[in-house]
């Protein structure tokens, strides 16, 4: 540190005292830090769907539109339910149930993809039978973000709480997660 620099720091200390630290503390309440200011690079977003996800909120679409990313819509039918049905009913009834669920899933995927396309997103769709928690965590490794509806894998309850499966996914995924 040169003489002029140390002189300015001495004078600064004498003139300002500890006031600068207090000012910085006040500003830190509402200014973004350098880290927060960096918009993470997000190229692909995984969006799991199931029968409990009826729609994507406008707020979620607004946030997602900040990233120029492809959205992978994944409709997952619970493998546990299929297994239980196979044990309780005959194979034909299970297949009938499965076909019905797949039909519902296809409709939801098409409807959601169309809505996202309207907002300028490029989308990919897939549908499979699997575990709604474990499989999302597994697939999320290949994506930069996961967008989860708080009703995903929940039930038809009307309260505003977040589904336990969604909370578990958030605890386990390494990518950023958005709950809408």
């Amino acid at each position, binding site marked *: 540190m040169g003489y002029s620099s140390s002189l300015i*720091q*001495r004078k600064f200390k*004498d003139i*300002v005292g500890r006031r600068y630290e207090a000012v*910085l503390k006040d500003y830190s309440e*509402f200014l973004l830090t350098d880290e927060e200011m960096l918009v993470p690079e997000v190229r692909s977003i995984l969006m799991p769907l199931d029968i409990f996800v009826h729609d994507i909120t406008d707020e979620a679409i607004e946030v997602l539109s900040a990233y120029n990313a492809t959205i992978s819509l994944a409709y997952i039918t619970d493998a546990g339910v299929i297994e239980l049905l196979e044990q309780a009913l005959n194979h034909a009834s299970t297949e009938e149930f499965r076909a019905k669920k797949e039909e519902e899933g296809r409709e939801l995927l098409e409807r959601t993809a169309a809505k996202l396309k309207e907002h300028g997103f490029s989308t990919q769709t897939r549908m499979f039978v699997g575990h709604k928690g474990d499989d999302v965590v597994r697939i999320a490794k290949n994506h930069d973000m996961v967008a989860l509806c708080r009703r995903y894998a929940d039930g038809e309850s009307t309260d505003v709480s977040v589904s336990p499966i969604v909370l578990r996914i958030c605890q386990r995924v390494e990518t950023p997660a958005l709950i809408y």
Partner: protein
Amino acid sequence: METVALIAIAVFLFTYALIIDERIHRAVAAMLGAAIVVFIGIVPWEALLQHVDFGTIFLLLGMMIIVNTARGSGLFEYIAIKTAKLANGSPIRVLILFALVTALVSAFLDNVTTVLLLTPMLLYVARVMKLNPIPFLVTEIFASNIGGAATLIGDPPNIMIASSAGLTFNEFLIHLGPIMAIDMAILIGMMYLIYGRSMKVSPDERKEMVRTLNGLDERAAIVDRALFKKSVAVIAFVVVLFFIHDRIGEILHIVLPFVDPTMGLEPAEVALIGAAILLFWSRQSPEEIFEKIEWPALFFFGGLFVIVGALVETGVIASIASVMVENVSSTGEAMFIVTWFAAIASAIVDNIPLTAAMIPLIHDLGTTMDVYPLWWALALGACLGGNGTAIGASANVVVIGIAEREGIGITFIDFLKVGMLVLFVTVAVGFGMLWMMFVV
């Protein structure tokens, strides 16, 4: 020359050297110098009370109470965010708006607080724009010094001059206000010419900046809405009172006939009245507010007044004045010398001790010439001279100090190159206008 006079000069120069170097706190240096001249009897108790300018000290004290109380409301952060958002993503607009806001706030509140509170926001905006913050920071420094020079309460040299010469708030506004308005326009033009090319941003960057800044909520900066409103109201009231402080009796007499119509209020009284009202109305803890008063600054002023008082008591100031009178033939010539001496000296050393020493000198010149124009010459030189170097004024030190802490180096030489240019242009324009007012 008598021994006591030599001692007074030695103490003054020694203290000055300590203030320049700042290895010892300036307040301690001033108090030490004052202690020496009091201890050896150069300034006896009765004279000490005369030399300490309580008008200056109480004005500073009152304004410090008002500013420190208002600060707790988030008022300054609100102003900073609002200014940043108004710029609408244009770097040039950021430069101009921050310069104007800094100048305006500095004209009514102290420069150090102004830049201390605006600089972090300016750095943030520059970071969002991904632009070099130095042009914005140096412009803020110059704007603060120019804005502060416009009013009686804007800069300590003006406060000292007004208190000693009995000048009013409106006199400052009439004589220095137009000069500083023109100097501000010139400054913005100069900064545009010097830095304009480096302030280009792409449309995408501009969009990103607008998005980030619009994400800031200026209302969130207001931590105490009631205090915010009360602070704004009291500051507005104090400013109005400054405008009418010399004829307050006339106005009060209309509604309160027992008030003497010839009564006027000193600026210090206005500041203390405002401080009392704000403390009473806001119900803020006086202990907390009084703790925030910059006592070292007040003791620094007190010590300086005593040290300069020693030069007066020993006849040093009178001797310098007589030499000046012998060699200066007209008020215009004296104005030229005072303006440029104060400007150049203020760039090199602190303008507060310089002004403290110049005030009694100008009083002594009053026996042989009209010194009224010289007060404006001194105010002009002492305030704008601070723009010359990195250590010329407190605002410079604060902004450059903050920049260094944030990893942005503004070297002494880099600042000097722009600072001296601004100094010479703004002082020359100001001097020209004073010349037209008093000489032509």
